[in-house]
């Protein structure tokens, strides 16, 4: 299993080029000599990104790796080399294509072939050297969000350094003086670069491995995008009307579930680089917030929660002991954030009878299977999705995802925590749907 994952990881660089030609009717004008042969979209797809689980344990050298690596949802940790006692990481800022869920890809900007970029993992006290090459079409910098470091390493373009121009490579080097959960992101043309998906997590493990030890350690970033239906590139000037709300730039059902074993102490680290707060809610277990980007919360200051609001630019890590077997929902509690793209100005048809007009409307569009919608709510959207109703190119249904009992009617910031008694230690693979003990499922009277 692990070997297979590794092969797939190594295959990540081998992107395949696909060109999606638009409808043949969209002919380039005769007079436009640059556009002969029609308009084509050049897209680079990552091979089967859903299967890329964190291979950190395999690829980082054993030297200096005295920690329990984190698992990045649908991501991986950046490998490093030891150079005279310094952990050297190579980071390339570049345009990438991210598959948000099967059937939808987005032209992002990211790091090392992915958005968000790979997770940087190191240990408190390490000296790290981060060699950053800019392959973006514009200048950038990297800011190490939450880290204590020399001012000149803070990565604020214009303030603490010159911006890294296209094609240039800069070196950041400092000693890690804290442990906890942090992030990295650009501090140059931030609005565009973050809207395009430039961000990553920076995890610093405690010097003493037994401190803050957990059995499962998951991390991901909250990010949001405005990719208009039928398009591929996020609109970087959008401030509120996002239509893709994602965990690590993946949307349900295209997100890894967090698979744990009964009795595991589980930590989930969440960073928020969207432009709004997200009340992250977990079913089945109360948890305690144990860490913020300011550091570890003293044990006597922790309090129980089932929802933690993660503000803009904040990190929260929370922990619980998995005691309850089952498939537990884990999601943002803003209901729009568990939806895929939708029209915010569609007319309100709740309670409006339309089916008697169906024939009349169908007459006007004889080649089209018309279906009235919205009279009794929007759940029929899921039916439409199940029926495979065609949508605009590169557009996900507003809600989809099938559970063992039917449609889950969720999208966006939604995933599952799967707790199993028989999940082997260190095994992060998906155990499938929960097999409920007899008499433990709600039943129809």
């Amino acid at each position: 299993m692990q070997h297979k994952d590794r092969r797939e990881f190594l295959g990540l660089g081998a992107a395949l080029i696909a060109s999606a030609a638009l409808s043949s009717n969209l002919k380039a004008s005769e007079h436009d000599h640059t556009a002969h042969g029609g308009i084509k979209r050049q897209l680079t797809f990552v091979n089967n990104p859903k299967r890329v689980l964190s291979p950190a344990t395999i690829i980082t050298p054993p030297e200096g790796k005295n920690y329990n690596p984190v698992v990045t949802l649908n991501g991986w940790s950046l490998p490093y080399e030891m150079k005279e006692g310094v952990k050297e990481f190579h980071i390339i800022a570049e345009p990438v294509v991210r598959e948000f869920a099967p059937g939808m890809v987005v032209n992002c900007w990211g790091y090392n072939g992915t958005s968000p970029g790979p997770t940087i993992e190191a240990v408190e006290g390490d000296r790290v050297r981060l060699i950053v090459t800019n392959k973006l079409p514009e200048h950038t910098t990297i800011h190490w969000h939450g880290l204590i470091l020399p001012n000149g390493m803070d990565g604020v373009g214009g303030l603490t350094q010159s911006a890294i121009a296209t094609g240039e490579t800069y070196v950041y080097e400092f000693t890690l003086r804290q442990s906890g959960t942090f992030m990295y992101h650009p501090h140059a043309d931030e609005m565009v670069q973050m809207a395009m998906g430039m961000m990553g997590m920076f995890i610093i493990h405690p010097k003493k491995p037994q401190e803050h030890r957990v059995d499962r350690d998951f991390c991901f970033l909250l990010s949001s995008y405005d990719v208009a239906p039928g398009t591929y590139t996020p609109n970087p000037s959008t401030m509120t009307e996002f239509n893709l709300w994602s965990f690590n730039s993946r949307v349900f059902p295209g997100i890894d579930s967090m698979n744990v074993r009964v009795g595991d102490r589980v930590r989930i680290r969440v960073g928020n680089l969207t432009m709004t707060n997200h009340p992250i809610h977990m079913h089945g277990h109360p948890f305690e917030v144990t860490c913020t980007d300011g550091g570890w919360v003293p044990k006597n200051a922790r309090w129980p929660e089932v929802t933690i609001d993660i503000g803009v630019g904040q990190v929260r890590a929370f922990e619980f002991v998995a005691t309850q077997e089952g498939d537990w929902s884990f999601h943002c509690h803003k209901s729009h954030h568990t939806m895929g793209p939708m029209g915010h100005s569609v007319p309100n048809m709740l309670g409006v009878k339309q089916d008697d007009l169906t024939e009349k409307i169908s007459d006007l569009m004889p080649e089209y299977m018309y279906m009235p919608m919205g009279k009794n709510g929007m759940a029929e959207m899921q039916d439409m999705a199940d029926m495979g109703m065609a949508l605009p190119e590169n557009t996900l249904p507003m809600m989809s995802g099938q559970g063992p009992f039917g449609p889950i009617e969720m999208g966006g910031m939604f995933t599952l925590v799967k707790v199993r008694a028989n999940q082997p230690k260190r095994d992060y693979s998906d155990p499938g749907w929960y097999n409920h003990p007899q008499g433990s499922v709600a039943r129809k009277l």
Partner: protein
Amino acid sequence: MRKVVVFSFAAAVLFSGCSTLSQSDVFDSMNQMTSSKGSGELTWIKSAKEEEAVRSEVERLLKEPLSEENAVRITLINNRALQQTYEQIGISQSDLVQAGLMSNPLLGYSIGRGGGIRQSGVTLELAFLDLLWIPLRRELGGLALEETKLSVGDTVLQTLRDAKKRYIDARVAEESVRLNDDVLKSHEVSLQLATRQYTAGNLSKRDVLKIQDEYAHARLESIRLNRESAIAREALNKLLGIYGGQTYYTLSKEPLSLGNQPRENGALERIALKHRLDFASAQKRVEYAAKEAGYSKKTALLDEVTVELGSEKSTGESRINSIGVKIPIPIFDMGQGRLSRTQSLYNQSVQNLVSLAVNIRSEVREAYATARYNYDMASEYQNSIAINRDILEQTQLYYNGMLDGIYELLGDQRRYRDTKIESLKAIGEYQKAQADLIYTLGGENNATQR
């Protein structure tokens, strides 16, 4: 004496009677000429029998949905304005007959009495030189008839062109009404939905009223199109020459198609001058004027030469036969008035011909350019239709995903229909331009000729 008189009469009858074309010969020859230019068989209604034949043919053709071909056919046999011009042929032909007749001889008889003497005399005066001028006059008459035939032929082709154009107008107008019915229906559905949304508490009164207003405007547009259709149909009816129950015909629903692009042709001006009947008619007029001027010159002085035969008898004396000639003395009228008049007429006809040529050359260039650009516009609309169909298809996808609402879907459906109406009008404009071009080039098939 008797012999002379008999001879003169015989000669006059001989010259004027024979080899004159009949009216129907001339009409047949015109029929042949215009037929080859696309008109088909013409009918000249001259009797109740012909009238009845035309009437039943028109009835028969109006029973089936009216095609362009049949509209043209009905117009050419039934349009009374056109029939009226056929009579020009009759008039010219009669002029020609007249020109072939010698002036009637003047017979004079005198009787006198006095001093026991009784005298009687018989004179016969004959404008003798008429005998010489008759062939010339007949040549002129022939030219005039030829000119008339060409000119009437031109009217036939004009009428043919107009029938085509009015037919296209009527078709486009009627089809626009039909296409607009869908637009209207779509507005209706919008209003129905909006009213229900309002009733359910999901839409404000203001927003319903706005949608209601859009529907009202759609109805106005529908009325306007119906009015246009009625007007276009009447314009066609006039040309078809029909009235009453005959006007309840239906128009063919065969889709109006764009057809072929007008062929690039560098020789259009030459073709037009070669084939245009109005130009040929003007050429005949010049020929006529030239002949007439020459004739006037020859006859300036001698036109009124008269031969006079006389026979006189006085009582008791033997009869005296005499022969005399009357020649006008050119003191006052030396024919200069008539001469300069015909000279001016000739000059006028030449200038008219040149001016007509200039106009025809311009017309043909203009007609070609109009047809050419109308074709481009109409084919551009074909693209526009395809694009709008794709837009509608895309909006359907947005509707499926609840990314757009039903009003967008209906709106884009209307947009698609509107483009179809515009495209239809553009096709009509092109076909009318094509009819103009064909006429300008002097009839069918010349547009593609080299």
